[in-house]
């Protein structure tokens, strides 16, 4: 297991609100890790994730992904890098009017011929792969339904299927289970765990609940006001560290 992602002195300032979202953050991620980001809302978790694939431009700092510099990549290099990084979102971010199958296949857009993809002409291989991914997440029978006809948990599974289509080396999840109930949350996190253990995908996810982080994560990174306040294994978080991360009035909530 070698160093896969290196973040150095990452800073992000939103000038409009004069908000310091990320303050000189540095850390590394090893290949195959399941890294969980913890922290209150507004502590910079989403911003950090989006800086790694440059959906948000960092104000300062460097990010190295598998030896390549993300922050300085040209737009073409960036697209090639993004192909290897998959992302799933809190609000699922599916195209609601399109079918589940189209949503899944769109994970492969970075690899498809632009002209063919423009007219929705997918190769049989791609379609079979998409159905296989949907089978892996357990919803192959929904393939032709409109995406907004599915429940929340099913939609997030489509998001995971879309990520699977990319055959990524890195999976980033921006609060993937915050909009779901506890039982569904576990099933989603189990899919992420499966990807991490069976496919060897490095997972970088932000979560709200410490119990989920303890259950699934191999390493935890906690942010507060844009700074790292804790970096270590889940076992190392005790009551004192917990209050440090979440503030004095915080109490732990169990998600069974």
């Amino acid at each position, binding site marked *: 297991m070698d160093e896969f992602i290196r973040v150095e002195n990452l800073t992000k300032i939103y000038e*409009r609100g004069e908000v310091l979202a990320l303050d000189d953050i540095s850390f590394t991620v090893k290949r195959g890790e399941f890294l969980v980001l913890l922290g209150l809302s507004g502590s910079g978790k989403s911003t950090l994730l989006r800086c790694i694939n440059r*959906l948000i431009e960092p104000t300062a700092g460097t990010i190295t992904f598998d030896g390549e510099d993300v922050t300085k990549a040209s737009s073409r290099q960036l697209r090639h890098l993004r192909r290897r*990084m998959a992302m799933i979102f809190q609000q699922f971010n*599916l195209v*609601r009017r399109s079918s589940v199958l189209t949503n899944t296949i769109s994970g492969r857009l*970075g690899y498809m011929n632009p002209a063919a*993809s423009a007219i929705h002409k997918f190769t049989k291989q791609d379609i079979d792969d998409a159905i296989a991914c949907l089978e892996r997440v357990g919803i192959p029978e929904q393939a032709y339904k409109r995406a907004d006809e599915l429940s929340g948990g099913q939609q997030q599974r489509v998001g995971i299927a879309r990520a699977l289509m990319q055959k990524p080396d890195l999976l980033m999840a921006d609060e993937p289970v915050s909009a779901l109930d506890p039982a569904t949350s576990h099933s989603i996190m189990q899919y992420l765990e499966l990807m991490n253990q069976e496919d060897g995908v490095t997972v970088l996810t932000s979560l709200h609940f410490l119990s989920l982080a303890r259950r699934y994560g191999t390493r935890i990174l906690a942010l507060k006001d844009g700074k790292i306040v804790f970096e270590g294994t889940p076992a190392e978080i005790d009551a004192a560290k917990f209050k440090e991360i979440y503030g004095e009035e915080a109490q732990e909530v169990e998600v069974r």
Partner: protein
Amino acid sequence: MEQNYHAGFISSRPNWRKGFRAYGKDLTVLAADIFVLLALWGLCSFIWNHFALGTRDFLSLPWWIVVVVCVELACIWSSFGTSPGLRLLRRRLINEEGKRGLLLRRFLRVATLHLQPFLALEVLVTAKYTPRHDRITGFRVLSEMELQEARGPWYRSSSSLSIVLLGLAMFLVSALFTQVDLVKLFTNAGATAEIWDRIFHPDWSILGLGVRLLIVTLYMAFMATLFGVLLAVPLSFLAARNLARGVVGRSIYTVLRVILSIIRSIEPIIWAIIFVVWVRTGAAAFAGMLALLVHSIADLTKLYSERLESIDPGPVEAIRATGAGRLQVILYGIVPQIVNPYLSFTIYRWDINVRMATIIGLVGGGGIGQRLIQLTRNWVWDQAIVLMLLIMVAVWVMDYSSSRLRERLN
């Protein structure tokens, strides 16, 4: 420094504009008050002049007196109560607690408000705005939300009363200006008795010609809508604020928006006047189509681009994150969200174009309107009513089917 948010939305303004905005707000309050007072004065003096002197005059006094009085009254109003300008920008004037001599301080504020124009220089130079009139007199202007006071009944606030008064005065003046004369309406009906008689005995011989003219009219509307859509769809992507990147993109956006607004303000009938002169005589339908086309492009682009600006950025972000190229992001992330609304707007525009096409003949734009105006000018009302009925039926059918289609699209 260019800041990129998700999905490429443009952000950030340079810092020095903050001073301008603060100054602009104070100025807007004053300007709004002065405007309301001037309008009230103008309307009331018009009413007075109309009834007392029988003349049409908006200012009973020399204009400079009126302006000075209004400016002074505006300063006094905003210092002593909640003027319309303050209410418009949702601000209130509060004083530091415990300070006495309140009345004197308010007058002092009125006096120092006169410094406002000179503060503009200061803002330009230092990019910071200090509301001197408030600082010196110990007042602060807070937004309504910070104050959280209970609003009294509306008839107790001077700003609401003044707005109501303004509305009533405007209504009265509009009735006078429009020369509303109900007496004339009911006594003059005799002059039109002949017309009514002809209208109730329609001459159906013109029906065949009318139907053919109606067909031309409908095709005119169709072609205008079709070409309008073809041109408006690409333009809408250029005219959407959230898709415009870089200096080039932003300037294209601004220029396009301005030009399209101007074109949209000119009704198709006026465009038809221009085009009728431009094309050869006999190509009236073509001229009418062009007039509708020009207006359709402007209107459709506005509707389309407004819809583009309110798309859900989430899916767009997700597609970007998979490494797709820009065209793919548009086709997979943006287009599925906008197809139905675009179709709905197109049908809406088609409906309007049919209505416009029926009347664009009045200026020589071909179709059924041209024949109709000829008939009314020659007082052949029995045939004119047949054409009007045809128009009515056609518009009705179009309206009904278009509203049903748009229902289904949602």
